[in-house]
């Protein structure tokens, strides 16, 4: 009996070890299979290959993308697409390790700054010019494509352009007895009106740390008429940045926006999940056009969400920037670039794919995608209005390092600067110095 137990235990131990080895074996054998399939495909074989698509987003985007991918597989029986998707929170951390370890999906939805962060030497993403026979790049403007060229390689195809713009809860403004602001002066006046008529808790605009940073850049560009970063160099002096900091602080002082402490005290994960946004206590945001639906849909019933205007009295110039919101890139180590390109082309350029995707990733940059959406009323009216205002107004360019994790992260420079200012730990001069030093550090100056 004792001997039997020993034999059983030994068998179990060996099985565990072999199962580990078997995992490796399966992997390598599947590699062999895929390699032979690829070889076969060039000879016209119909053997199915498997590629993987990854993206982040909300539930609506997930549903639309899954449906579109299923349609793609129906029309392309030789390609099986596995899907990996989730919410944005923590997604960048996950993908960075995947890119480093070459375990990322074959096709990846990417943030624009990932091109410089993860593939500044072109080692992570495929040059899409190599698959232009399959992926129709002529549907995209050269200016848009140029924004995705890093290390002389077109590393992604841009899906849409985005920028920040004001959105207001018109219902709360009406309750306060005023119209939605169309100028900075009106916005500042609204702060006091809200306080007097609705109460201390009501604010016409709510700005988190990163929102403050972007609004400050918009203000500075409006006043000084130059890009925030030019040729890899911070284009503003400490004194100029200090003026921007004082502008942001003036909004808090004028009861236009709540303090950071007040927002954190609300205990919400993000502004769109903040009960004070949902019930109209906070009546304005400065957000990406692609985020409009998220904020609009979060509002309680009976409230009207409207797109605001850029303020002409902010300065002499038309401040603000637009940038590629996101793109699709193919991993350089994929075994099936042609199939990957076919999938991207389907999602962005072909009627069947665009019909399902609609404006889930913003207003399409693809000419054919946009035309199909417009002809079939697939564009969300709010997103379309915001996007057209942004593209018509903004004149400045964004450097990709603006979104570097060391600046944008929750323990990054922007958070430190604007929390320090709002908590009263930093004065405007110190805040400007913290910002300038942190940005120069990232820029390598």
């Amino acid at each position, binding site marked *: 009996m004792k001997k039997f137990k020993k034999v059983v235990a030994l068998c179990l131990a060996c099985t565990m070890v072999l199962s*580990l080895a078997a995992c490796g074996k399966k992997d390598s054998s599947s590699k062999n299979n895929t390699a032979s399939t690829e070889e076969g495909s060039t000879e016209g074989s119909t053997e199915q290959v498997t590629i993987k698509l990854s993206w982040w987003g909300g539930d609506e985007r997930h549903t639309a993308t899954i449906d579109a991918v299923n349609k793609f597989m129906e029309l392309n029986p030789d390609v099986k697409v596995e899907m990996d998707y989730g919410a944005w929170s923590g997604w960048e951390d996950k993908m960075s390790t995947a890119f480093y370890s070459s375990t990322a999906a074959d096709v990846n939805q990417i943030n624009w700054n990932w091109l410089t962060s993860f593939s500044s030497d072109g080692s992570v993403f495929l040059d899409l010019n190599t698959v232009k026979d399959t992926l129709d790049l002529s549907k995209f403007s050269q200016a848009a494509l140029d924004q995705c060229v890093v290390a002389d390689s077109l590393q992604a195809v841009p899906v849409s352009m985005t920028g920040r713009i004001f959105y207001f809860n018109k219902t709360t403004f009406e309750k306060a007895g005023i119209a939605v602001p169309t100028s900075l002066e009106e916005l500042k006046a609204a702060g006091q009106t809200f306080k007097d008529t609705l109460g201390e808790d009501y604010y016409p605009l709510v700005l988190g740390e990163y929102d403050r940073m972007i609004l400050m850049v918009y203000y500075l560009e409006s006043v000084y008429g130059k890009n925030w970063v030019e040729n890899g160099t911070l284009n503003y002096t400490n004194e100029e940045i200090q003026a921007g900091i004082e502008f942001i602080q003036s909004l808090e002082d004028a009861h236009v926006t709540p303090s950071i*402490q007040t927002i954190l005290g609300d*205990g919400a994960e993000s502004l769109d999940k903040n009960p004070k946004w949902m019930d109209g206590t906070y009546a304005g945001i400065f957000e990406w056009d692609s985020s409009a639906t998220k904020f609009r849909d979060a509002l309680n019933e009976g409230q009207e969400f409207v797109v605001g205007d850029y303020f002409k009295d902010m300065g002499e110039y038309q401040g603000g920037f637009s940038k590629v919101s996101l793109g699709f890139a193919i991993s350089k180590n994929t075994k099936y670039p042609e199939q990957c390109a076919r999938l991207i082309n389907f999602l962005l350029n072909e009627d069947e794919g665009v019909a399902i995707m609609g404006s889930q990733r913003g207003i399409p940059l693809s000419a054919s995608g946009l035309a199909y959406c417009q002809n079939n009323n697939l564009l969300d009216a709010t997103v379309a209005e915001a996007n057209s205002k942004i593209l018509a107004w903004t004149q400045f360019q964004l450097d990709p390092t603006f979104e570097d994790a060391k600046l944008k*992260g929750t*323990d990054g420079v922007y958070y430190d600067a604007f929390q320090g200012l709002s908590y009263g730990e930093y004065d405007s001069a110190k805040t400007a110095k913290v910002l300038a030093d942190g940005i120069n550090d990232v820029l390598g100056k």
Partner: protein
Amino acid sequence: MAKNAVDSAVFVPKKKFSMKKTMKNNMGFFFILPWLIGFLVFRLYPFASSLVYSFTDFHLFNGINETGLMNYQEIFTSDKILKALKVTFKYSFITVPLKLTAALFIAYILNFKIKGVNLFRTAYYIPSILGGSVAIAVLWKAIFRDDGLVNTMLGFFGIEGPHWLSDPKYAIFIICLLRVWQFGSAMVIFLAALKNVPEELYEAASIDGAGKWRQFFKITVPMITPVIFYNLVTQLCQAFQEFNGPYIITHGGPRNSTTLMSLLVYNSAFQSHEMGLASAMAWVMFIIVMILTGIAFWSQKHWVYYSDSDGR
């Protein structure tokens, strides 16, 4: 000469390889082989390589360009990292004693023969399972936000509650409370130890007129000091590695008042991709925990009672 050669050939037996015997002799090794492979690949290799990386400026996407002590210099000169170290010590020195006290107190009560004791034991253990989940983070925020449950209740008594989540003075206590609340596992270990205290000691003490408190401090506590010591060391190690609470409730804020070293290590490694710096911070933490554990082991001869080794 030739005869001698023949003799030696006859008398020296040739060793035969026996698979059965080899298997038998190495049976133990085969049993631990799966664990050993896991340990070498997933523990020892990362452990050793992190030490090497800690002396480099290894960036996930820029590689290694410089070697030296610069990461360690940064750790001891950066305000942010020094603050995180301070917060980590504060967090550990608040949570470990409180958690041990709570666990021992509840275990002591649950050791009495009371009705429905198994239900209470389960109920008190549940937070240990739920503690680090996102659902609990949401619940914690709902309880402690400015207009949350706690401040609403304080409002009934005319007290204006503080900004628990957004005031740097209070936020640290919220994540401490979350950890102390998860005292279940330590409690179960204490409960097992309490059951092993001989009943005769209490009977003798009762006859001598000792009350419950006196019995607790003069009999119970000394008899379970080995378990208190064990819980102290494990809780200390865990407290210094705490990540979930501040990550999901406060994200390290406000003003870095809840940024523990583990959070900073994570941010450096996976957000800024500075693996060299992250490795150095992890090693500093490791050395600190080693020193504190060493102090605990050194101190045990003064206060831990081992009944099976001649008292101490």
